[in-house]
């Protein structure tokens, strides 16, 4: 294994790289400095999230009301439980990783294999959970109306429970007519964003149903969204309503401000990308361990280096969890 020299030939030379004042190998130190720069990237993202949130601090969605789903428990309100589960998965895969590093120090190949395998499984479970979380977020639940000014208004019944627009929408003949060549309009494109019902259907259903109120994006001094009376609600929907929003994408977001969805996709997406590359690197190292590369090299330091990266991914998630879901 000539390609994997441990010694550099500069030992005992004060000049020329022989000295190790930090008592860490080149590779490990560079991993630390990469982590510092990556931490700054994530701080930039989280700080810009904070900036936008402070900018619209009285109209920001409440995370507890956005992430309320748990797989296989449809219709059950379970705020936070699923992200808590994801957090535990990631912390636990961090534990198996550090156990792998520890087994590496003791040169126990089989234990390193076992713990690295568990780490990879944990990473894959996390990625799957995140995919499910994204799918649920994109699909949406209750639906909402966007006003001409870009505000989101959501529907409640008089008891204060959320009502989905599909439950009260007036199903009449839709005002969408398929255009054909005969109309001379074959070149007209559909608008990019097509919810399953039109605004007029929702408005009709809302006016016919006396039990419905609307809730604004703006919050009162207790941090709860302001709920309008029936008369104010009608005025709001009729005068300001413009568009039906179902789920979330980069332009419209039924949960509140579109920036919330943008940052959600961007920050958790970037973190998920880190998890994915972490799993990939772990798999490469896993096969190297099985092949005995590090036995021959007589050092499992490579496991330690990928371990640093994997722990960093966990560290970032701790912050994302706090600033997206808790605060």
């Amino acid at each position, binding site marked *: 294994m000539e390609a994997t020299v441990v010694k550099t030939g500069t030992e005992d030379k004060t000049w020329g790289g022989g000295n190790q004042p930090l*008592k860490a190998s080149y590779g490990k130190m560079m991993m630390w400095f990469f982590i510092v720069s990556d931490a700054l990237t994530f701080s930039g993202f989280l700080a810009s999230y904070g900036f936008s949130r402070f900018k619209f601090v009285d109209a920001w969605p409440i995370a507890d009301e956005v992430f309320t789903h748990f797989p296989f428990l449809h219709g059950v309100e379970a705020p936070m439980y699923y992200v808590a589960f994801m957090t535990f998965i990631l912390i636990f895969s961090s534990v198996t990783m550090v156990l792998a590093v520890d087994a590496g120090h003791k040169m126990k190949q089989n234990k390193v294999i076992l713990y690295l395998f568990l780490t990879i499984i944990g990473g894959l479970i996390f990625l799957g959970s995140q995919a499910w979380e994204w799918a649920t977020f994109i699909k949406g639940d209750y639906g909402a109306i966007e006003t001409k000014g870009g505000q989101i208004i959501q529907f409640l019944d008089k008891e204060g429970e959320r009502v989905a627009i599909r439950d009260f929408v007036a199903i009449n003949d839709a005002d969408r007519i398929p255009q054909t060549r005969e109309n001379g309009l074959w070149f007209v494109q559909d608008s990019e964003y097509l919810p399953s019902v039109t605004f007029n259907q929702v408005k009709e259903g809302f006016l016919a149903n006396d039990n419905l109120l609307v809730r604004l994006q703006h919050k009162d001094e207790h941090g709860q969204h302001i709920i309008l009376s029936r008369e104010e609600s009608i005025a709001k929907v009729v005068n300001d309503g413009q568009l039906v929003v179902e789920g979330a994408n980069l332009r419209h977001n039924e949960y509140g401000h579109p920036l919330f969805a943008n940052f959600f996709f961007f920050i958790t997406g970037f973190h998920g990308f880190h998890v994915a590359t972490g799993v990939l690197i772990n798999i490469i190292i896993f096969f190297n361990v099985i092949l005995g590369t590090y036995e021959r090299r007589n050092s499992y330091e490579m496991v330690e280096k990928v371990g640093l990266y994997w722990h960093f991914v966990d560290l970032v998630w701790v912050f994302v969890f706090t600033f997206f879901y808790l605060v």
Partner: protein
Amino acid sequence: MAHEHKLAIFRGAVKFKSNVSKIWGVFIFLSVVTIIEVALGIVRPDFLIDNRFLALKLLNWIFIILTIVKAYYITWDFMHMRDETTGLRRAVIWTSIFLISYLIVLILIEGDYIFEVYKSGFIKFDF
């Protein structure tokens, strides 16, 4: 590779016999902190929401402090920062802390300023 691990956490209050048992101890500690965070996030006690310290709700102070505590133990024990030399530790930690605090303070003050402009200036966001 004979690595020396420092086996005491909580400023020496808890000492472990081996590195493996220290890992499990830190894991239990991190789990307890996470459970506290999630429980507070679900319950959201009123007195923690209605009272503020330096313009931030007490609940959010608790979340942020617990997060930093978790970050400390992940870095110190899982990433073995406790065992590195002082020079490496300071090069990594002080640099990050300085740059990140600087960025966050400036950006959040700016965000709050724009909020005030929307609220009391001529630009409106409430139609």
